[in-house]
């Protein structure tokens, strides 16, 4: 089942001679139960890709976190309750009613992680989710993300770190706003263990 589908997505910053084509005709599909990583150097367009899903500046932290729940069909009041619980769980309750521009980069990142992981979600989006975190916490977050996808969620992870992308089923390479290559789907762990004879 396709959960996320981007078809021929382009995004241009600026106009005229100074226009930068951050994305040029990107096609991307993420199935339920699949974690897809997008890799590329800075300037490749990978952040622009996820900025399509960034924190919304006119909404508070709680509203940002509850939005995907509401889009999934949850009643607003209930969604807001879940959101507050999630913010508390991640230890950033004090940010509940703040807007993104009233937070530091690290705080915004934590709200985004919270939003990505709140409730029983069908789609999880993560942009360098471990960026401002130490490596152990970072690995724990990737494990949560992996687990969510194993449980049936569709995940999209944007990163430039190979060892983070390695948790995905499929890695898509972005260069100058264009998808240049992909690893293709992963074999199961069982079949990998069989081929190595263990």
């Amino acid at each position, binding site marked *: 089942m396709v959960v996320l589908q981007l078809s021929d997505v382009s995004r241009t910053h600026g106009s005229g001679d100074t226009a930068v084509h951050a994305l040029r005709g990107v096609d991307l599909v993420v199935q339920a139960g699949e974690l897809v990583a997008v*890799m590329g*150097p800075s300037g490749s367009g990978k952040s622009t890709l996820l900025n399509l899903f960034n924190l919304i500046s006119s909404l508070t932290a709680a509203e940002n976190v509850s939005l995907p729940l509401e889009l999934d069909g949850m009643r607003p009041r209930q969604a807001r309750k879940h959101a507050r619980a999630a913010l508390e769980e991640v230890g950033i309750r004090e940010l509940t009613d703040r807007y993104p521009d009233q937070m530091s980069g690290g705080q915004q990142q934590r709200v985004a992680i919270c939003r990505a992981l709140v409730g029983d979600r069908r789609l999880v989006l993560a942009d360098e989710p471990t960026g401002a975190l130490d490596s152990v916490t970072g690995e724990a977050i990737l494990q949560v993300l*992996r687990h969510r996808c194993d449980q049936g969620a569709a995940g999209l992870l944007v990163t*430039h770190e*190979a*060892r983070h*992308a*390695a*948790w*995905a*089923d499929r*890695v898509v*390479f972005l*260069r100058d706003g264009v998808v*240049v*290559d*992909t*690893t*293709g789907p*992963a*074999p199961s*762990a*069982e079949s*990998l*263990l069989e081929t*190595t*004879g*263990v």
Partner: protein
Amino acid sequence: MSIRNGLLALLADQPMYGAQLRSEFEARTGDTWPLNVGQVYQTLTRLERDGLVDQRGEDEEGRTTYGLTDAGRAEVERWWSEPVDRESTPRNELAIKLALAVTVPGVDVTRVVQAQRTATMRQLRDLTRIKSATVTDGDRTQLAWLLVVENLIFAAESEVRWLDHVEARVARAAGSASPRAATAGSPEPATQRQAPVRTARGLR
């Protein structure tokens, strides 16, 4: 890699026959470097000739077992105490390939880099999967295997990082190259290029 030291280290544990050495070697390194029995016996013959192992007779099924001599035991001790010689490692084909790709005219270096990156990422992903499916539970053989898998993970990760670096460097060189130098296939004058090449050769 020479399996010589690996076999000697196994024999320090107890005398063994050829097929047994093979399966012990493979089990302890996670079947990452499969051996054939012929290779094992050939190595044993050479070790015997060098006085590092000797025959200990036959087991009940008529298989010749081998054990370490005193010289063999000293050799194993030396192996544990000395670092692995990085210079005797096999030639790095990828480094050679990219060195040639940037100097032979008409090669699309970015494409060479990307093809390698995709393949290495695939391997890194599969290794990560194997790693997370591995439970050690205090089992030494599983632990040994996990260490081998992690060694391959670190190597793959470092290769991807190096490929990123190559790509960035090639892009920067192309950006700063004068049109004349660019057609010559290098951003730097030939005289400057000579020095590091000579140093690298001196290292070999």
